[in-house]
């Protein structure tokens, strides 16, 4: 075990997986010479050569589109999108091909590619360095989506994504890239996709979150000293660990879902719908959402007002307890 930051854990996963499987390759803007603008791919080009850690032209649709062809040629490409919002040019390929190609081949061909990117706000950056685009990805059939919140999960989930036979999109919480540290198993470390993590056990209310909202929920749980709060880290949005969600809802009877992305059609809405369909008799109050607002992510001087806060989460919990 080593104490690593999230971005170091991701880098560690790459070193292990590129060593283990010669068909794994990394491609993206500035991933090679610079080792990635966040240094997630540092050292790979030196160790594995410029073809297995390839600096692409500046073209996100090209990166993802060529990854499809690379899969057909027997590679397992891991694509980096430099930032959340800069992944948008790749959505054309993602929606029209990545999610459909296996289906189109009658299941004969697999597309074991990964798209990973830093996501989320709170980093005092210029416009379009702050988005939470998970809905666009998770809404696309044929694509799996995972969002880790801890260094250990960042390594284990990326490893699982690389080994997965289907396309997986991994969003990484850039707010905590360097600041959140934790124990990370050495060598091969797999966190299976589709399994939630109980970040904290409690009896009165469940906070459901993923990515950078998990530490926030834990802070809110600390503040709510008189309430027994359970924090469920969803980890994989698709496939979803419904059992864990329903079990926690059954246990506490109260659920608040916390999501940084705008509210309308966000992933919280999906979770709430599942609870409405399958847990209605377990619930002692409405499922509440604390989310970003339905606005373009704001100027950074007032970005904190956009981000779900401990205060907004605790207010939602109190409201639910008073229901």
């Amino acid at each position, binding site marked *: 075990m080593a104490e690593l930051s999230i971005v170091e854990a991701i880098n560690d996963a790459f070193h292990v997986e590129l060593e283990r499987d010669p068909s794994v390759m990394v491609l993206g803007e*500035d991933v090679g010479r610079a080792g990635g603008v966040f240094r997630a791919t540092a050292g790979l080009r030196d160790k594995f050569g410029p073809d297995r850690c390839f*600096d692409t*032209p500046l073209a996100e649709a090209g990166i993802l589109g060529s990854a499809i062809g690379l899969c057909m040629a027997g590679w397992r490409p891991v694509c980096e999108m430099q930032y959340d919002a800069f992944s948008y040019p790749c959505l054309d390929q993602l929606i029209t091909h990545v999610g459909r190609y296996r289906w189109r081949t009658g299941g004969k061909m697999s597309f074991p590619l990964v798209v990973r990117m830093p996501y989320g706000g709170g980093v005092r950056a210029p416009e*379009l360095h702050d988005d939470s685009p998970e809905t666009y990805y998770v809404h696309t059939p044929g694509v799996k989506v995972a969002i880790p919140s801890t260094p250990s999960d960042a390594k284990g989930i990326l490893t699982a994504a690389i080994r997965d036979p289907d396309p997986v999109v991994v969003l990484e919480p850039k707010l905590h890239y360097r600041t959140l540290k934790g124990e990370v198993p050495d060598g091969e470390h797999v966190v299976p996709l589709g399994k939630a993590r109980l970040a904290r056990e409690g009896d009165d209310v469940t906070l459901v979150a993923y990515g950078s909202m998990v530490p926030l929920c834990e802070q809110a749980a600390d503040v709510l000293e008189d309430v027994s709060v359970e924090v469920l880290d969803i980890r994989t949005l698709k496939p979803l660990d419904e059992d864990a969600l329903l079990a926690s809802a059954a246990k506490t009877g109260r659920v608040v879902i916390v999501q940084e992305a705008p509210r309308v059609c966000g992933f919280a809405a999906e979770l709430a719908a599942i609870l409405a369909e399958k847990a209605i008799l377990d619930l002692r109050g409405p499922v509440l959402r604390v989310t970003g607002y*339905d606005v373009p992510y704001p100027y950074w*001087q007032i970005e904190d007002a956009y981000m779900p806060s401990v*205060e*907004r989460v605790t207010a939602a919990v109190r409201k639910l307890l008073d229901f």
Partner: protein
Amino acid sequence: MAQVLPAERDLRRVIGDADGAGDREVDGLGEQELLELYRSMVLLRTYDERSVVYHRQGRIGTYAIFWNHEAMQAGVVHALDDADWIFPSYRESAIGLLRGMPPTTVLSWWRGHPAGWWNPADYNVASICVPIATHVPHAAGLAWGKKLKGERACAVAFFGDGATSEGSFHEGANFAAVTGAPLILLCNNNQWAISTPLEAQTRAETLADKAIGYGMPGVRVDGTDVLACYEAAREAVARGRAGEGPTFIEALSYRSAPHATADDPRAYIDLDRVEEERKRECVGRFEGYLRRAGILHDDLAESIRVEAADAMRAGIAAAEAEPPADVSLVFEHAYVDPPSTFGSDLDELRRTLG
């Protein structure tokens, strides 16, 4: 049908220090215009150098440095009329200064303060475009739209060498060509896209060669020679106004500073090369030209520098004196008729802010 010319491979120059060809004069540029051009370059240079300092002092956020890009920015803008539109990328964040925008506005943008978001129609300068190349079709559409209305305005889109790899660049360039839009595609070829060198970006011999494929002229200029940039842009504007469609201008320079304040180029760049390039930086080159022509002397140069420094001092003071943005702004400006949820969202936000 416009004739498709092969791209000019030779770099156009007017300032004669680089190849020993001697200084040329540019028709129609008198002493007054040359000094205006110089003033613009010094203003941009001062903006840039002060911004790097302000960033270090924590007074602005992450900042994209444009040191040694002033010549192409000033040269092109001076070739335009005020009715012509400019579509900047983050690398041209302060280009509005050449249209009378106060430095405070741009500083506020880099401070993440709403006062930094201007009305494009006030200056005919579009918003700063952060996602690479996505503004190229906007500029094509503006130029096309003006043409359809019978107006004589042109547009210029500034984008980098890396941007030529994006689909949006291709689509915008092709649209401009097909519609005969009076557009200048101003490619700032500083030979780097963050850590990615030009040779990893394209196998085209020159970026101007790309113009051939779109059926428009491609011109290569020394991007650190302000007069060459001016001259090429003026010709492109004349073509545009004459209904001959878009022109691609490759302005060749070298990124002699980090990509942005957050970047550390030591990992990928040859620092000796950077030192060499810095010796030929564009403001100094133009200053040399003006001095050789007897137009600029020490006192005048000094007073122009002082004027720019004063503007920046006033600019940062005013930016820092902006009242803090109210959180209600989170819900402003995205819609003419905002969804009804915004009211209750703001109430909830205010309650939890205490």
